[in-house]
C-alpha cells in the first residue's frame, strides 16, 4: 500500500473530506487555502482562496451533490463556495473563530460551532442554505450550550438522523443532545473524559464514532445514544472513521505536537490503527506521518482512506487487494458456530 502523498499545504492539516462519490477530496489547513484534489491520482484541481479566509481554516463540508463547499475559519467567518468555479458565494460572520461546519442531511441547512471570543460565548448556529439567495441570511437558530461554563469551548456539533436533533461535544468530553430550534439539552452523556476531537458517522447514520484526547474512541448506537464499543489506544485520538464495507474502524492521532518536538516520531505513535469493530482489537496500523494525525476520511466506497497531519502532508491510501480478500474466520458467523 503505497500512499499518494499530497504536498499542497504549507501548514498543519485541519480537515480532509471526500464528496459523496469519493472522486473528490477536499482539504483545509492552517495555511488558509482550502484545496480540492482528485482522489484517484492526487491531482490538485484548485484552491478556494479568492476573497478567502485569512488565517487558519478549521473545518469544511461539502453538499451531498458536491456543488457547494462550506468552510469555517479562525477569521470568525464561515464561507460558502461554488465547488466547480472556486468562487465564493457567501460570507457568514460569527462572534468567534469557527471550529466546525456541517451540512444537514439533504444539505438544506448547515450548522456551525464558534469559539468564545472577547466576551462572546461558544455558540452553535443553524443556517438555512439556499445557494440561489441574493444575500446571505443570518442564522435561523443560534444558541449557547446550557451547562457549558462561560469561556469554555465546544469542539463539534453534528446532525442526528433525519436532522431531528443536534449533538454537541465539548472540550471536557461531554456530549449533549439538543433540540435544534432552542438548543434545549435533552440528554447529557459523560463517556469521554477529555476533549472530543472527532465525530464520524456510518453511511446509514445509525452508528457513529467519537475520538477523544483521553486516548479512546467510542462507537455509539445513535438511536439510544448508547456506547457500544471502546477502542483504546496509547495516544490522544484526533480522527476516527467507520468502514462502509467491513466491520472495521479507523482510529488516528498521536502525541500532542507540543510535547513531541524533541523526541523521535516513534514516541508519538503517529499512526492510523485499524480495529475490528466488534472485538475492538487493533489488527493493523499504518504509519508514515511524522506529526500527529489531525484528520481522517474513509473513502465512501471503503476502498481506502485519507489522513492529514500536523506535518502538512495529506496521505491518500488505497487498500491492496489483500485487504479485501482478508477474511477472518471469525467474521463468518456460520463457520464459527460449526467449529
Amino acid at each position, binding site marked *: 500500500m503505497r500512499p499518494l502523498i499530497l504536498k499542497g499545504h504549507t501548514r498543519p492539516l485541519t480537515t480532509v473530506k471526500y464528496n459523496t462519490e469519493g472522486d473528490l477530496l477536499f482539504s483545509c489547513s492552517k495555511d488558509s487555502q482550502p484545496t480540492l484534489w482528485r482522489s484517484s491520482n492526487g491531482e490538485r484541481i484548485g484552491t478556494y482562496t479568492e476573497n478567502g479566509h485569512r488565517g487558519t481554516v478549521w473545518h469544511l463540508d461539502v453538499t451531498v451533490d458536491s456543488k457547494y463547499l462550506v468552510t469555517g475559519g479562525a477569521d470568525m467567518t464561515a464561507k460558502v463556495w461554488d465547488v466547480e468555479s472556486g468562487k465564493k458565494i457567501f460570507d457568514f460572520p460569527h462572534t468567534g473563530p469557527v471550529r466546525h461546519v456541517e451540512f*444537514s442531511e*439533504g444539505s438544506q441547512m448547515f450548522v456551525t460551532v464558534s469559539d468564545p471570543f472577547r466576551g462572546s460565548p461558544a455558540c452553535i448556529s443553524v443556517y438555512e442554505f439556499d445557494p440561489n439567495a441574493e444575500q446571505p441570511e443570518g442564522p435561523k437558530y443560534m444558541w449557547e450550550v446550557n451547562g457549558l461554563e462561560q469561556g469554555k469551548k465546544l469542539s463539534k456539533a453534528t446532525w442526528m438522523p433525519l436532522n431531528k436533533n443536534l449533538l454537541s461535544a465539548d472540550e471536557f468530553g461531554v456530549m449533549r443532545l439538543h433540540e435544534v430550534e432552542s438548543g434545549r439539552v435533552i440528554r447529557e452523556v459523560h463517556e469521554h473524559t477529555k476533549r472530543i476531537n472527532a465525530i464520524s458517522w456510518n453511511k*446509514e447514520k445509525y452508528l457513529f464514532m467519537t475520538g477523544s484526547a483521553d486516548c479512546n474512541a467510542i462507537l455509539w448506537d445513535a*438511536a439510544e445514544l448508547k456506547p457500544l464499543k471502546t477502542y483504546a489506544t496509547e495516544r490522544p485520538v484526533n480522527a476516527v472513521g467507520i468502514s462502509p464495507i467491513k466491520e472495521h474502524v479507523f482510529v488516528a492521532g498521536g502525541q500532542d505536537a507540543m510535547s513531541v518536538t524533541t523526541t523521535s516520531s516513534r514516541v508519538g505513535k503517529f499512526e492510523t490503527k485499524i480495529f475490528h469493530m466488534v472485538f475492538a482489537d487493533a489488527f493493523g496500523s499504518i504509519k508514515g506521518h511524522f506529526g500527529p494525525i489531525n484528520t481522517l476520511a474513509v473513502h465512501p466506497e471503503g476502498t481506502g482512506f485519507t489522513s492529514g497531519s500536523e506535518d502538512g502532508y495529506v496521505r491518500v491510501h488505497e487498500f491492496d487487494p489483500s485487504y479485501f480478500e482478508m477474511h477472518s474466520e*471469525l467474521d463468518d*458467523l456460520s463457520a*464459527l458456530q460449526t467449529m
Partner: protein
Amino acid sequence: MPIDFDYSNLDVDLDELDLLEEYISDGDVDTDRVFEEEEGEGADLKKNFDKVVVVDNLPKGVPQEKHEKLQAVIRKLFTSKVGDLQEDGLFLPADGDNKTLGFAFLAYKTVDSALQAIKVLDGIKLDSKHTCKVFPYTDLEKFATWPEEYQEPELPEYKPMPNVNEWLMHPAVRDQYLLRHGNNTEIYWCENAVMKAQATLAYDGERERQNGKIWCEMYTAWSPQGSYLATFHRQGIVLWGGDEFQRIRRFAHPGVQHILFSPNEKYLLTWNGVDDNMNARALILWDLRTGREIKCFKVDKQPDGEPAVWPVMKWSPDDQFFARQIRDGISVFDSSTGRLLEKKPIKAKSIREFYWSPSDNIIAYWAPEADNFPARVVLLDPETREERRSKNLFNVREVKLHWQNSGDFLCAQVLRHTKSGKTTFTNFEIFRMRDANIPNEILTMKDMVEHFSWEPSRERFGIIHGENQHRLGISFYSAGSVEGGKSIELLYNLPNKAFNNLHWSPAGNNVIFAGSAISGEIEFWDVDEEVMTAAEEHFMCNEISWDPSGRMVATIVTQPMFGSVAMKYQLENGYNMWSFQGDSLRKEKMEHFYQFLWRPRPKSLLDESEKQKVERSLKNYMARYTKEDEVRRKRLEASANKEKISALQEFRDLCAERHEIFVQQQQERERLGLVVPDNDEEFDVMDTEEEVLVSEKVEPYP
C-alpha cells in the same frame, strides 16, 4: 537481590503508618519497644526503667576517693559501643562507709542503647578478677516477685506454617511472576507459549484489601529459591508464602531500604541505607526461619570515602559465611553468630573487588598495581585463609571478574595497556576450577570489549567486541572441557551486530542480543544451530527477564517509584511476553509500573545423569505434553470463540434492527426532501480520452 529505595521523597502519613504497623508490630515485644522509642520521650515510668540496666560484679569496697575514677572507667566502657547515658545516668551505690557495693545502675538515653548494652556488654571483663554481668533493671523486680513454686508455662497453640513450596506442585508446572504497579501487587501464573502466555491470577492482596489495607506500597522481592515474597514497609520487611501468600514472618527494621537473602534462604540481611558508622542498627542479620535477630552492625562508607553500595555484604554459596570488603582486606563472618572469623579480617592488599564462587566457599578478588607490587587476581579459601591460586598481572588498567554460574570456571577480564600506554587490549584469563592447581589459559583480544558473559551451566561464553563502539560484533567461544585437556576454542563470530548486551536463557543455548533501550531492538539467537530465530523490538525496553525455566522471556518497561526519571518511561510502561524463540505472545500496558519479577525456582533435584535420561526420553514426554496443550488450547479457543460469537451476534442483530428503521424512514426522508430518489438516468457515463503533453525534450543532434 539489591533494591534501590529512597524514602526521602515519601510523605509520611501518620494514619498510614499506624496501618502498616499492624503488619509488623502485634505481639512482637522487641519491635514494640522500638516503635515506642520512636514515638519520643514518654513520661511513663515503666518505659524509663526500660532504659536502665544493672551492672553487677564490679569491684567491691572501693573507697570514696576512687569512686570518680571507677565511674570514669565504667562510663567509658559502657558507652563507647552502645550509646550515651542520660545526664546523671550512672549511679554507684555505696555502703555506710562510702565503699562500693559492687554493682551500678546505668540509665541510657534510649531503649535501643539499653537493649544493646545487655546484648553486647554482658560478660565484659573489667579486669582479670571482675567479669561484669549486665541485665535489665526490670529483671530485679521480676525476680523479686518470682513465684516460689514452678508453674508449667502454657504452650502456645501449634499453628502449622503454610507450605512455602506449594507453588512448585502446579499440575502443569507453570511459572509465576509478580507485577508491582500503582498500589497493586499481583502474582500471576503464566501459561505456556501454546496458550499465548495467558495470565491467571494467583493472589493480589485480596485478604489485605478486605481488611482495608494495601498489601504493599513499596518495593517487593522474591527470596532466591522462590519460597518467600518479601514486601518492604516503613517499619521493616514482611515475608509471605504458601498458596495464599499468608504472612510468615516479620523483620522490624525501621526505614529498611535493601535486603539480601542468603542463597539457601537461611538468613536475611537488612540495611536501612545509613553508612555513617554511627547507627548501631544500620545492618541487621536475621535468622530467617525463627525471625530472631542474630546481630546488628554499623555500616561505614567505602575505604575511599564513597557512599556504601549494596550489597554491603556478600553471602557464601552455602549460607555459612558472609563477607565484606574493607581496606586491604576482607572481613568474613560466621552466619550463625555474626562473629568475625578468627576475630580478624583476611589480609588482601589493595583489594578492589571480590566475589564468592557460586558453588564453593572460595573467594575471588583482584587488586590493582600498588607500591611496586603487580596487580593480582587471587582465589582465596576463607576458612584456611590460604591462597589457593594467585596470578600476577602487569600493565593492568582494570579487571572484571566473571564466575560461571556452576562455579566450574572463573574468567578475569583484564584490560591491559601496551608498554607505551598508547593502546589497550584485553586478556581473558580463564581459570579451570575443577582441575588440580587451577590452571589458567589466556585469550587475547585487540578489539574493544563491550560485554562478556558465560552461558549458564555450560562451558561456552559470548563476547561483544569491535574496533569501536559503532562497529561491534559477537563471538561465541567454548572454554573447553571442565576438567583437563581441551582448550579455548572460537566457535564462530557474527560481524556487524550492533548490540550491547547478551541475555542468556537460564536453560542455556538461547540468547537474546539487546541494543540500547531507546531503539529496543532485540534478536533471539540459537547458539547450537547458529540461527537467528527472531528479530523484534520493544521500544524503550529497559529490562529483559527470562523465566527461571527458560521457556519464556519478558521485555519490560518499568519506571522508578520515585524521582523524575520516571517521566521518561511513563508512556511506554508495560511488558511483552515472548517464547524462548522470539514469538510474540502477549503485550500488556500498565500505568505506574514499578516491578516485574519472575518467581525464582530452587535448584533442580536431578543430577546430571538423571537429566540426561530425561533428555533421551524427551520424545515420550513430548507426545504427552503436546496432547495436553492441544486440549487446553482447544478449550481456551472454544470459550473465546463463544464470547466472540455472542458479541458478534448481538452487534449484528442491533445493526439489522437499525437498518430496518433506516429503510422505514426512507419515505419520510423523501417527503422532507432529504434525499433524491435513486435515479441513475440522471447521469450519463462517458469514457473520454485526452492527450496531454507532459514535457518535451529535444534530443541534440548526434
